[in-house]
Structures are given as structure tokens and as C-alpha cells.
């Protein structure tokens, strides 16, 4: 039974949405150039950058998969957050790759590649960035809607309507104000989101207690719930895979890089990175605590979760433990703050993802093949049109695609489609003089083919999951199955293998091409 009251909590949520929409739409008058629309005229300062990066990188989907990690892996599930924080701090502090990138004055990463690797590499890089990014964000909307349905007790029939209304609202201010609207709404959303996250966490710690959380993890996972290296499901390959993915994300993930490139100078961009780094620990630990609290609760039974998963048409029921738990423990009034916080988190993520990926389509897939430059006005109209198209894609992919297994592993694999190749290209572009277009093309192709192959094998080739006695496991009355690659290779090894293969492809491809006098370094 949820504590959501449509009068009290609904009013809080409605007020928040109204305030965000007004703020987002009001700034549209400052959008006079494409540069304003894509990188906020490069006028973003440190604290606005921290608020925007933190708000963007925390959506409902983030909350769901990080809580799922807490519920299924204990504290060890929060390791990706620690990896990301370390990577972001080190990159921001040293300026590794991000300094030459921001110094170059480009609006997107592929634009930088053009000078070194040529127009075709820029276009190809744009295509894989968009492919990986769209597949990645395709699941956001559905999972966000499922959270709202479980937490508010909303009728499932309204899921699609709620998702559509939310997306249209976000699309309106993103289309009108671009990055300027995104930054301003992100700032408001950061405040609302942070207040909600902290309030609910303190409530849970007060109600459940740290001792109970630790005891629960001990009971369910033993030492593996605290230390990923001794966890049979995770191990060192999980930590290494996350270090690679998160370092690559810090260097090339569109939403992170958009903040760096929107910063008013290189030093500001680096300060945004170092200042936001620890937020990534919070991003995994806070929902992780919620997930562990759900595990400690006697009311959250596997049967109840299976029932919800069946109703939602999803295979993995662990995703619903946290929202079901919150629906039972968060009192009226605070529920409104929680839902407003989650909507804030989701809206900031959706707007930024739509904008930053549309900027790659505009800047790197369409722009290199234009005969004459478009006027600023036409450029803005094209950008707005692309944002709207991405919104439509999100709506239909989100309704169609059903996730199997762990959400984080899906996001990691789809992200790897471009993270592995783009991070390798960026490092080579900045620091390896011998790197050339042969190596770049080989790296992009290998980096895209391996994860797409793994995803396809997971989607279309199923293998039965057996217990220790060799008997088929039963779930929801049917034999439990897993994707071929996930079962036989493991998601962590797919990631590690992709990064290794991409690096080899870059080196071999570059060395195979005869040296030419025209090779230039952007430094």
C-alpha cells in the first residue's frame, strides 16, 4: 500500500514541474547561435557545472540499477561508483585528455578527430556515438515509468501516458532553450533531487539502522557483500571492467564531455570534474542503501516482486525491490518530495541526453557533408528538429524493448559500443603521434562489433540456467534462461575483451599504414 496522496504529494510534484517548465522556457530568448544551443555559449562556471553534471548523471534509471545492485550484491554493488569517482578526480586533476580536448575549442569529440584522422573518421565516430548512446538511453523512460507506477501505486495502464507527458515536457524546454535550458533546469533539479535523496536516506537509516543493514548484507552475501574481490559473482574482472568503462565514460561520455566543452575555460572544466567526482560515490551508495534496506525488510518478498515483474512484463524482479520498499516506508508529504526528486533526476537526465546526442548528429553526422555552412537560425532549427526526433525514438524504443538481467550490465555493454573506441581514439589523438585513420577506423569497427555481437547473442540465443545438480532452474513457472554471451563469457569479460581488442586494432592499424609527412597532432 503506497503512501502517495494525490492531493498533498501530487501538489508538491505539480508545483515542481510547473516551476521547472517556466524556468526552462524563459531562457530561450538567449539562444541566438548554435553555440548557445549546444554548449551554452561556453559560459558555464564551476558550480553550475557541478550541479548540472550531478543532476544529469542521476536519473530514475540510475536510482533503479544502483538500488538493484545493493539488493543483489550488497555493498560490493557500489564499486562502480568508487571507480567512476577515482577516474573523474584523476582525469580532472591531471587534465589527461580533457585539457587538449577543451583547449582545441571543439563542440564534440568527433570534431577533434577530424583534424587528425580525417572527415570519414569524424563521421564514423559520430555514428557509433549516436548508436551506443541511443541504445543506452532507450531504456530510461520505461524504467522511470515503472518506478513511478510501483512507488505511487499508479495504475499500470497510465504508464505510457505518464512517460509520454514527462518526455513531452522535457522535450519542450530542451527544444526551445538547448543547453541553456538544460543548465538552468539542471540547477533547480539538482537542489530538489539532493534534498529528496538525503531526506529519504536519513529516514531509512533512522528506521532500519546501520547495524541492520550490515547484518542483512552478511546474511545474504557473506564477505562477498562487502568485498567484490571475494564475491564469486563479481571478482577482479568486475572491478577491472568497471575501471575501464568508467575511465572511458569520464573521457568520452557525451553528457560529461558536454559540461567540459560548455565550461568557460579549460581550468573551469577540470574543476567541474574534480568537484563532482565524489558525487559518483553518492550516486551508487545512496540508492544502494535503499536496496539493502529493501532486502532487510520482511515485507519485500520474492513472490511480491515476481508479481510486479509479471505485471510489468519484465523478467528480472529485483529491479522493483527498492520502489516497492519506498512505497511502504516513505510517509505522506515526504512521498511528494521523493517523487519530485525522482522526476527532477529523470527530467535532467532525459533533457541532457537528448541534447548532447542530438549535437553529435548535427555537428558530426550532418555537418561534415554540407556544401555551405548553414545560417545560425537554420542550425538552431535543425538542432531542435533532431532533439524532437530523439524524443520520439526514446518513446518508441522505451515502449518496445524489454530488459533481461541486470540493468547496469546492459548499460555498460551498450555504452561500450563507443566508449572503448572513442576513449582509445582520444588518447591516441592527444598523445600518440603515430596514430592515423587506419588505426582509428579499425578501432571504431572492432569497438562496435564486439558489444553488438554480445548484445545480439544475449537477445537471440538463450541457454538454460542450471543449478549445481545440473537441473534447470524454474522462474515464474518457466525454465530460467540467460543470454549466450552473458552465460558463457560474462558481461565483464565482454567489456575487458572489447577494450583490449580496440587497443590492439588501433596500434596494428596505425602501424600498418605507411608514415606520411602530413600527420599532425592537435597538441
Amino acid at each position: 500500500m503506497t503512501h502517495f496522496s494525490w492531493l498533498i504529494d501530487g501538489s508538491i510534484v505539480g508545483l515542481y514541474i510547473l516551476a521547472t517548465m517556466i524556468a526552462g522556457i524563459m531562457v530561450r530568448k538567449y539562444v541566438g547561435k548554435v553555440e548557445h544551443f549546444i554548449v551554452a555559449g561556453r559560459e558555464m562556471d564551476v558550480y553550475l557545472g557541478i550541479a548540472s553534471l550531478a543532476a544529469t548523471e542521476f536519473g530514475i534509471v540510475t536510482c533503479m540499477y544502483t538500488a538493484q545492485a545493493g539488493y543483489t550484491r550488497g555493498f560490493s554493488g557500489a564499486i562502480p561508483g568508487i571507480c567512476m569517482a577515482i577516474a573523474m578526480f584523476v582525469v580532472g586533476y591531471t587534465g589527461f585528455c580533457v585539457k587538449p580536448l577543451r583547449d582545441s575549442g571543439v563542440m564534440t569529440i568527433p570534431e577533434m578527430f577530424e583534424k587528425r584522422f580525417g572527415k570519414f573518421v569524424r563521421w564514423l565516430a559520430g555514428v557509433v556515438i549516436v548508436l551506443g548512446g541511443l541504445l543506452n538511453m532507450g531504456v530510461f523512460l520505461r524504467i522511470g515509468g515503472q518506478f513511478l507506477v510501483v512507488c505511487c501505486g499508479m495504475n499500470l495502464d497510465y504508464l505510457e501516458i505518464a512517460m509520454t507527458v514527462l518526455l513531452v515536457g522535457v522535450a519542450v524546454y530542451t527544444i526551445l532553450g538547448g543547453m541553456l535550458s538544460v543548465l538552468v533546469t539542471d540547477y533547480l533539479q539538482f537542489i530538489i533531487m539532493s534534498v529528496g535523496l538525503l531526506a529519504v536516506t536519513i529516514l531509512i537509516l533512522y528506521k532500519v539502522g546501520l547495524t541492520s543493514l550490515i547484518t542483512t548484507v552478511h546474511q545474504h552475501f557473506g564477505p562477498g557483500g562487502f568485498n567484490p574481490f571475494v564475491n564469486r559473482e563479481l571478482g577482479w574482472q568486475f572491478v577491472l571492467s568497471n575501471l575501464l568503462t568508467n575511465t572511458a565514460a569520464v573521457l568520452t561520455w557525451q553528457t560529461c564531455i558536454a559540461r567540459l566543452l560548455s565550461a568557460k575555460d579549460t581550468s573551469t572544466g577540470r574543476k567541474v570534474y574534480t568537484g563532482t567526482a565524489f558525487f559518483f560515490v553518492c550516486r551508487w551508495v545512496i540508492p544502494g542503501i535503499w536496496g539493502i534496506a529493501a532486502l532487510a525488510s520482511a515485507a519485500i518478498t520474492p513472490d511480491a516482486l515476481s508479481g510486479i515483474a509479471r505485471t510489468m512484463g519484465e523478467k528480472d524482479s529485483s529491479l522493483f525491490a527498492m520502489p516497492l520498499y519506498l512505497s511502504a516506508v516513505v510517509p505522506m508529504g515526504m512521498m511528494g518530495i521523493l517523487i519530485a526528486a525522482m522526476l527532477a533526476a529523470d527530467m535532467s537526465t532525459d533533457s541532457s541526453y537528448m541534447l548532447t546526442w542530438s549535437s553529435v548528429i548535427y555537428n558530426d553526422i550532418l555537418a561534415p557533408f554540407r556544401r555551405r555552412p548553414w545560417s545560425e537560425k537554420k542550425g538552431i532549427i535543425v538542432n531542435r528538429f533532431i532533439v524532437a526526433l530523439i524524443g520520439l525514438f526514446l518513446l518508441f524504443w522505451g515502449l518496445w524493448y524489454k530488459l533481461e538481467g541486470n540493468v547496469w550490465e546492459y548499460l555498460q555493454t551498450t555504452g561500450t559500443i563507443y566508449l572503448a573506441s572513442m576513449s582509445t581514439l582520444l588518447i591516441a589523438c592527444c598523445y600518440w603521434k603515430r596514430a592515423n585513420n587506419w588505426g582509428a577506423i579499425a578501432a571504431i569497427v572492432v569497438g562496435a562489433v564486439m558489444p553488438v555481437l554480445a548484445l545480439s547473442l544475449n537477445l537471440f540465443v538463450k541457454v538454460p540456467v542450471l543449478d549445481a545438480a545440473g537441473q534447470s532452474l524454474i522462474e515464474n513457472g518457466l525454465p530460467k534462461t540467460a543470454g549466450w554471451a552473458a552465460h558463457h563469457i560474462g558481461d565483464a569479460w565482454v567489456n575487458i575483451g572489447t577494450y583490449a581488442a580496440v587497443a590492439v586494432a588501433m596500434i596494428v592499424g596505425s602501424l600498418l599504414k605507411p608514415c606520411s609527412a602530413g600527420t599532425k597532432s592537435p597538441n
Partner: protein
Amino acid sequence: MLNISTITEHWFWLSIIVAVIVWYSTITIYVSIRGAFDIKQMFARLGRQSADSPNDTPSDENPEPLNRK
């Protein structure tokens, strides 16, 4: 209540949880205040720029990205 053995055995995660709560609360307040100033200054600068420049010039993205700062 936490006992000593729990604290010593799980000091890493306990300190992470405490750090998360303290750091996140502090940064929320600090960024809320300083971020508002950043927004104000950003729009002041953009307002000055738009007053100084014509509106419909060709889009200047990309032909010479490495020369543009």
C-alpha cells in the same frame, strides 16, 4: 546501536556512508548558493554578447576546430 566489532570490521563502508551524507549535504547547500550566482553572471554575459553581435550569421561550427578557443 553500532558495536565496536561492527565498526572495526566494516570501517570502510561505514566511513563511506558517513562521508556520503556529510559531503552531499554540504555540497548541496554550497552549490545551491554559488550556482545561483553562476547563472546570474552567465546570463549577464550572454545578454552583453547578444547586444554586441548580429543574429543570423553563418554557423561557425567546425571548419577549423583546433584554432577556435
